[in-house]
């Protein structure tokens, strides 16, 4: 199965390794991603603060591009890995379905540039695709280097499950936990799965600028709790969450007077490792906090080395 793919702006920057690993993992599992031709910014959460209809229009253009590239397909699944993009596209999808004043204006705007929304596009999150389309059984079967009980703190963040819970529970999501279990890891049982990291999803993270103490405190709570519960790594599904948790760990350690040093990565990177992909393909060398020498684990576990 090939999906339409909306990488989002962060894929070009801080979230680069997320997209790299996602593409590699899906390819390994026999699914492909077709990047949308000339996609634009989803609008993030900054646009709704300025103009809510234009925010919808921005995302609607991407959905319309996906439909244009896949004529006759219904629904057209658009994979949006970034949590912020995922929510923005979903919101546009809902607004278009409602067919109210907003959708009327957006439809008109699309028309002026020769595009058309036929309400065929359906926004999907990678977790959704991995768990509900590919399935944990298939993923489990494809594992060549199981994680050997690696303790993973599954951190879903906010916008993957809020405000729209399309594929998982809003308060107690489990899709990532199931994935971790499928690849031989051990998800820790913690209460912070969907707690806000303080990032505020604009690419660049504005709250850290306005109120560093707020962002630091929220991120610190997460990292500290993961550390307390013995997590080896925090797995994320959002470029901004990942960046907040890894990028500011030094500063957190300084401000809160404790050494944190918790590994932070994307769930797709863990999946990739378990599927036998090498670190470079998965963009692990780009991570700021990654001290999980998979070579070490491979030696210990004595598992099949990749060819």
């Amino acid at each position, binding site marked *: 199965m090939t999906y339409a793919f909306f990488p989002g702006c962060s894929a070009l920057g801080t979230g680069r390794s997320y997209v790299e690993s996602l593409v590699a993992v899906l390819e390994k599992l026999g699914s492909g991603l077709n990047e949308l031709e000339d996609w634009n910014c989803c609008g993030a959460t*900054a646009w709704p603060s300025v*103009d809510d209809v234009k925010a919808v229009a921005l995302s609607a253009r991407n959905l319309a591009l996906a439909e244009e590239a896949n004529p006759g397909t219904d629904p057209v699944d658009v994979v949006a890995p970034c949590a912020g993009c995922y929510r923005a596209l979903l919101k546009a999808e809902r607004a278009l379905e409602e067919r109210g004043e907003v959708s009327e204006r957006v439809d008109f705007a699309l028309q002026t540039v020769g595009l058309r929304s036929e309400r065929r596009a359906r926004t999907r999150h990678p977790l959704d695709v991995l768990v509900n389309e590919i399935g944990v059984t298939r993923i489990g079967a494809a594992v060549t280097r199981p994680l050997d009980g690696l303790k993973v703190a599954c951190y879903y963040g906010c916008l993957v499950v809020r405000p729209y819970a399309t594929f998982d529970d809003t308060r107690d999501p489990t899709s990532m936990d199931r994935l971790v279990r499928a690849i031989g890891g051990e998800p820790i049982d913690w209460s912070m799965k969907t707690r806000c990291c303080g990032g505020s999803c604009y690419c*660049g993270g*504005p709250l850290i600028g306005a109120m560093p103490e707020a962002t630091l405190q929220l991120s610190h709570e997460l990292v500290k709790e993961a550390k307390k519960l013995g997590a080896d790594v925090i797995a994320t599904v959002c470029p901004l969450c990942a960046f907040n948790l890894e990028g500011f760990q030094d500063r957190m350690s300084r401000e809160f007077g404790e050494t944190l040093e918790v590994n932070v990565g994307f769930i797709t990177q863990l999946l990739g490792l378990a599927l036998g992909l090498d670190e470079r393909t998965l963009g692990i060398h*780009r991570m700021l906090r990654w001290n999980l020498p998979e070579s070490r684990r491979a030696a210990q576990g004595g598992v099949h080395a990749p060819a």
Partner: protein
Amino acid sequence: MAQTTAPTSETRKNGSTRGSWKKWRRVTDQSRFEQQLDPGFTQEITSIPNGERLHECIQCGTCSAACAVSAFMDYTPRRLIAMTRAGCRDDVLHSLSPWVCTSCYACTVECPKQVPVTEIMHALKRTALREGEYPRRFTTPIMAREFVGMIERHGRSTESWISLKLYLKTNPFQLLKYYRLALRLARLGRLGFGRESIRRPAELRRMLEAVETPASRVPARGTSTGSVGSLAVAATGGGS
């Protein structure tokens, strides 16, 4: 302004600022006359989808307690709702709370009356930007405008540029704090300095302008989006 670490009973007793004037807030007339309140403001905010549910709020405070950043707000979300409902236009627009909001939607999903709190925060920000009533040295409103301007021009955002401009505009000294991190990111290939753009940015601009067109039949909305549009352009001019 806010706690950086949870206080222990120790720090509570021996706070270093004992007796300092900083501990007392300057008090001005706290009463509100009915004529100071603006029912039109309430109406404007509640005109968003499901916004009328604001009137169903029972002031239980779930939004504030569910909020991860309410500790850093001058008014908790619940108070903002109450103030908006009462029509306290000035108090609401001069609150930092909407600009602290991270749009994580925890309030929205927990609200027992399904008040769209996050969307109300967005609406408050829109009104504030439109009327120019936003905190100038606070990064979030500047960020929102910068971001919007960048998308209007290029169709995509470039994280490096937006961050750089943000700090230059608000707090250049912050830059010093982050330059190491930025350099590291750049070395790892996670911070590109080449400006990202879509191939047909003009087309995108045309589309965004067209969003306003059908609404020109509705003058009130037309002007509002119009002025925001021009505001974004102004931001662009100031930035480059």
